[in-house]
């Protein structure tokens, strides 16, 4: 018996020291069918910037832009997978991370237009019992407060129990009830409606509200947002294994903050497929531009609903910050609406500059939700791209 025990322990010890396979295959043969303006006047400058930052250390970068004068352009640089040098391409799928919230907000506002949801109704009248039980004072929280992050609901991603479980179980896919379990019984951060504080939980709850109304919020988004705009290269829970699409890029993170990257694709997929409403979508850069353009051109919402999305609440320093699924930005004196996305293995930004009619989507396959030199590079790239586009 003791030999069995010793051998078992040795096997566990040895297997525990072998590298964990976290990488995934990526399709290197896909081709984008979206027409782009290959003569886009800023394309060389944008391509040079992407090349500069992939040389500096971003694994891969992809972007798409649209301007009324020159139409669509898209480009990429670096690798979709470092290990086998699969190049990053515009036909590959990027993680939208929190940009998903914009799509979620549109779904809620479409239901509001259809009279199926009241923005000022308490969420306790929509949420089914199992979910309601996890929230404190849910009767005081309205749908509108979830949309503009004034609910006071706690952030599940900040709970130490969530963070430790995520690190120790990188392949675990959380259910919404498990995620809500991390905030169960916690008092609200502030009186609902009193102030703004961004949390992923707000948009997860919106997904659950829309599930209760429509039966399936993801199906609703696909049918009422993606299909009308022909966003065939945008995936959101199409199938249980939609993140196994071979066009999806591999992702990386700087686990120890030492400037060394690990492939965390498996962890990223498990993490993203745990999230509903606040994350979960993947798309090609051009599809994101087409969505934003369709939204701003009134193809998804009535003008009054779009105006609600752009009714900004102020942050702690009294500056306009968030509407409904949209951030308000001022970049070098230029106003923009959009959303950022930051995840364990990816980061992105979706921006619309109304005074220029300019749209931008920029994505990288390195984690930007945790501090690292790579997250800093991604931020610098975004700033330089905006500088190039707006001047």
């Amino acid at each position: 018996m003791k030999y069995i025990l010793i051998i078992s322990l040795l096997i566990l010890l040895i297997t525990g020291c072998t590298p964990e396979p976290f990488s995934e295959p990526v399709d290197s043969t896909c081709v984008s069918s979206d027409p782009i303006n290959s003569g886009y006047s800023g394309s060389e400058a944008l391509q040079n910037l992407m090349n500069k930052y992939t040389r500096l250390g971003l694994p891969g970068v992809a972007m798409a832009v649209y301007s009324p004068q020159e139409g669509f352009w898209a480009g990429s640089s670096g690798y979709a997978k470092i290990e086998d040098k699969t190049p990053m391409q515009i036909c590959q799928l990027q993680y939208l991370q929190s940009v998903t919230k914009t799509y979620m907000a549109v779904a809620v506002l479409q239901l509001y237009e259809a009279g199926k949801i009241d923005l000022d109704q308490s969420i306790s009248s929509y949420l089914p019992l199992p979910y309601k039980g996890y929230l404190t004072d849910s009767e005081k929280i309205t749908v509108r407060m979830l949309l503009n992050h004034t609910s006071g609901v706690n952030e599940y991603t900040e709970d130490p129990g969530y963070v430790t479980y995520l690190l120790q179980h990188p392949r675990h896919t959380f259910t919404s009830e498990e995620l809500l379990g991390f905030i169960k019984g916690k008092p609200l951060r502030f009186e609902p409606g009193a102030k703004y504080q961004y949390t992923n939980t707000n948009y997860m709850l919106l997904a659950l509200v829309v599930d209760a109304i429509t039966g399936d919020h993801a199906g609703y988004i696909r049918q009422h947002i993606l299909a009308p705009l022909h966003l065939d290269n945008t995936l959101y829970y199409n199938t249980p294994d939609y993140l196994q699409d071979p066009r999806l890029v591999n992702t990386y993170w700087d686990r120890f903050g030492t400037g060394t990257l690990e492939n965390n694709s498996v962890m990223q997929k498990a993490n993203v497929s745990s999230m509903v409403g606040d994350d979960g979508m993947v798309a090609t850069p051009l599809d994101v531009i087409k969505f934003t353009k369709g939204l701003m051109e009134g193809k998804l919402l009535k003008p009054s609903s779009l105006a609600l999305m752009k009714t900004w609440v102020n942050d702690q320093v009294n500056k306009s910050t968030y509407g409904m699924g949209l951030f308000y930005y001022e970049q070098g004196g230029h106003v923009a609406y959009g959303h950022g996305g930051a995840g364990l293995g990816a980061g992105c930004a979706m921006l619309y500059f109304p005074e220029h009619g300019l749209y931008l989507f920029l994505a990288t396959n390195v984690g930007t939700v945790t501090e690292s030199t790579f997250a800093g590079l991604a931020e610098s790239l975004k700033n330089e791209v905006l500088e190039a586009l707006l001047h």
Partner: protein
Amino acid sequence: MKNFLLLTFLLWATTYALAQEKTAPTNRSLPLMVGVQFHSLALPLRDVKTSFSNVGVFVGTELLLNRKSTLVQQLSVGWQSNRSVGSGMMVMTQTAWRPRIVGAFYTELKAGVGGWYIHHPTDSWRPANGEWVQARNSGKWLPLIPVGISVGLNPSRGLPISPFISYQLFVAGHYNPSAPLVPNQLLQAGSRIHF
């Protein structure tokens, strides 16, 4: 796995205790401590079951700090595997207070400091001159603050070994810039061998 190991240890410890003569303990400085340990990155007493998937080994020794053998300074070095959060070497020194309780059994409370050289759990890459090079065996030293509780048996004249089990919590610093402190737990089963 957990139940099997705990049952094995308890049976061994009970048999051992029943077999002891009522003799004075023979604690001495500098015994050899050896054992196995099980690790998880988790909040205290949460996700304990996962620990048994992550095996490690340790060796160490201790120095008696008083004549009653109730205060000791321990030093241990171990190798801990963990496929999810990273494997690596742990070094700890802890001061233990060991009041005797019933017969040959003792309990122990301890706290100290340590370090953990943790490797990436998978292949890692570093940018260099516009290319990516594999960063073999790369890792990072993390500072540790461990606290623990142990129960064990005192050695007897007839059999100079002292089996023990221990539950330790430790906080590791600098795991990630956005998670500067991460809680961990270790379950240890081992023995002191008095030469």
